[in-house]
């Protein structure tokens, strides 16, 4: 036996012995994949950075984003403002840092509410089947057929209040009520496949009722795919919030939002492009980070897609 063969044989037996000793779970496999994926780490770092910005903006800038003086209009970098000042004389960087909070709040709560609606609807449709499934699936079809941006415009036009909290809640409400369908479909199909597993039959035989079977046995086993969908959805909700604020019907001043700043920067683009470029970069990186994170996790959990 040549040395090469010995090494190969040792490697093979090593590779075989390991799973025999302790079988790796799906999550374990996925984690092994993720650890070696640079995209996963990059997007995770970006997500954590934006979260830190939203929670403690003071860590990233010491300037007040509402401190605007026209005397500094389009002034260059200096005084703790690395990107200078915008048309109104506000610190561009400080405004972008503080803009993370509204975006992340809207994104996270929309994803949460979306998740709750989707889990309830998907679980009921998948578990009970028959006419409940038929009825709920038609509801999903109709809601899926409504174009998100157009419906959001009509709904938000009704909100005339300028109070920041009311507007944030309104945007979250509108995005969740229009955006839960994809996640509900995912839940429904994974509940249908989980329903036929042996452990569900076992739980039933031990006397578990519908409620217990659904929430204690099926739900934990069908949650993984929906978490991926919701991570990606979080990114697109942030983009949708910025788009609505850009149009002037989402969040409004005094709330700081990247969408509002991009709109303002666009108007005065010919004098200076920096007030447009900086919030655009923040928004694009944040949305990208969530979408790439979800994409990487999905690839790791579903090797078939590769």
């Amino acid at each position, binding site marked *: 036996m040549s040395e090469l063969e010995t090494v190969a044989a040792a490697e093979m037996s090593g590779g075989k012995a390991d799973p025999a000793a302790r079988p790796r779970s799906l999550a374990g496999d996925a984690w092994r994949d993720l650890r070696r994926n640079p995209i996963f780490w990059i997007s995770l770092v970006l997500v954590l950075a934006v979260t830190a910005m939203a929670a403690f903006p003071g860590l990233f800038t010491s300037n007040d984003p509402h401190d605007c003086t026209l005397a500094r209009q389009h002034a260059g970098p200096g005084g703790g403002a690395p990107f200078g000042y915008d048309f109104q004389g506000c610190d561009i960087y400080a405004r972008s840092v503080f803009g993370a909070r509204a975006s992340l709040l809207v994104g996270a709560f929309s994803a949460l509410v979306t998740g709750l609606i989707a889990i309830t609807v998907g679980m009921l449709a998948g578990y009970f089947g028959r006419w409940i499934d038929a009825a709920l699936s*038609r509801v999903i*079809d*109709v809601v899926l*057929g*409504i*174009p998100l*941006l*157009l*419906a959001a*415009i*009509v*709904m938000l*036009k*009704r909100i*005339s209040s300028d109070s920041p909290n009311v507007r944030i809640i309104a945007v979250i409400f509108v995005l969740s009520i229009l955006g839960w369908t994809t996640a509900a479909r995912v839940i429904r199909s994974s509940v249908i496949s989980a329903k036929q597993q042996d452990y569900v039959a076992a739980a039933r035989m031990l006397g578990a009722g519908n409620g217990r079977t659904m929430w204690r046995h099926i739900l934990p086993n069908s949650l993984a795919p929906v978490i991926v969908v919701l991570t990606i959805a979080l*990114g697109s909700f942030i*983009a949708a919030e*910025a*788009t609505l604020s*850009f*149009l*002037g*019907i989402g969040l409004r001043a005094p709330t700081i939002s990247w*969408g509002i700043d*991009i*709109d303002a*920067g*666009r108007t005065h*683009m*010919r004098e200076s*492009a920096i007030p*447009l*470029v900086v919030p*655009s970069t923040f*928004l*694009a990186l944040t*949305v*990208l980070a969530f*979408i*790439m994170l979800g*994409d990487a996790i999905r690839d790791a959990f579903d090797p078939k897609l590769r």
Partner: protein
Amino acid sequence: MFRYLVRRLLQMVLAFFGTTLIVYALMFAGQGDPIQALAGERPVSEAQRAYLTEKFHLDQTGVGGFFYRYVDYVGNLLRGDLGDSLTGRKISDMLAQAWPVTVKLAIIGLLVAILVGVTAGIIAGLRRGGIFDNATLALTLLVLGIPTIVLAPLAQYFLGVKLPLFPPTAGSEPSIYALLLPGIVLGSLSLATALRLTRTSVAENLRSDYVRTAKAKGLPIRRIVSVHVLRNSLIPVITFLGVELGNLMSGAIITEGVFNIPGVGFNLFRGIKTEDGPLVVGLVSVLVVVYLVSNLVVDVLYAVLDPRIRYE
């Protein structure tokens, strides 16, 4: 086939009434002063108030009154009478003027998606795992992740103002050249999705039995790819692009607004900015109908193109 068509049509009718009812209810239900709600924060003149009261039958009250007004609104919508905007122009006239521009823009966007997206998707699918494949995958993820409100102004600034390759804004009578950059921006999202779809579909079909059979018969690779594989892989892509055409026509609000293209989306953009309620509601109603009809056409087209789909 006939049963499928009827079923799908009934579904669309349901969706039509569902969405218009939602649009309508949101406009008027439970509001203190519906006229003020339409006008937003702008003051309403006596003449406008009288016109709106008569147009929407606001003198009738209660649930009966609501449905009376709803039926009236749907009737007007179906007859193509969308009423007047707060500026006094007929909305149907504005629509007639704006529509051709929007269609032109959507077609440019779609052409970009087909020419670049499908071609690159085929190459990536044939050489799966290669450098080109990985590069396009990363690029499409980037495009899918960047919102239009970032892409449109940045493209306008860098390619229109900084490097004056394209006119930065289109103006009232846009030429094809002026619509090119907005068309690319608008089409980039469909481009990325079309690319990914083509790639997966081509790669999947390359592994199928009929390709093996064709290879075994000794057909040249060129013929296998261009006749056997492409024909089967492009079915999902075509249906996707059909849906996209509807999306592009109803989704061009940002792009048209940023590039000043006088299409439907631009009018909607301006209607939102100037708080012109009747204009917004009228345009949204029409766009929703366009979206629903294009979805229907595509579903039927799908069933016609792919005999494997059962019309149950």
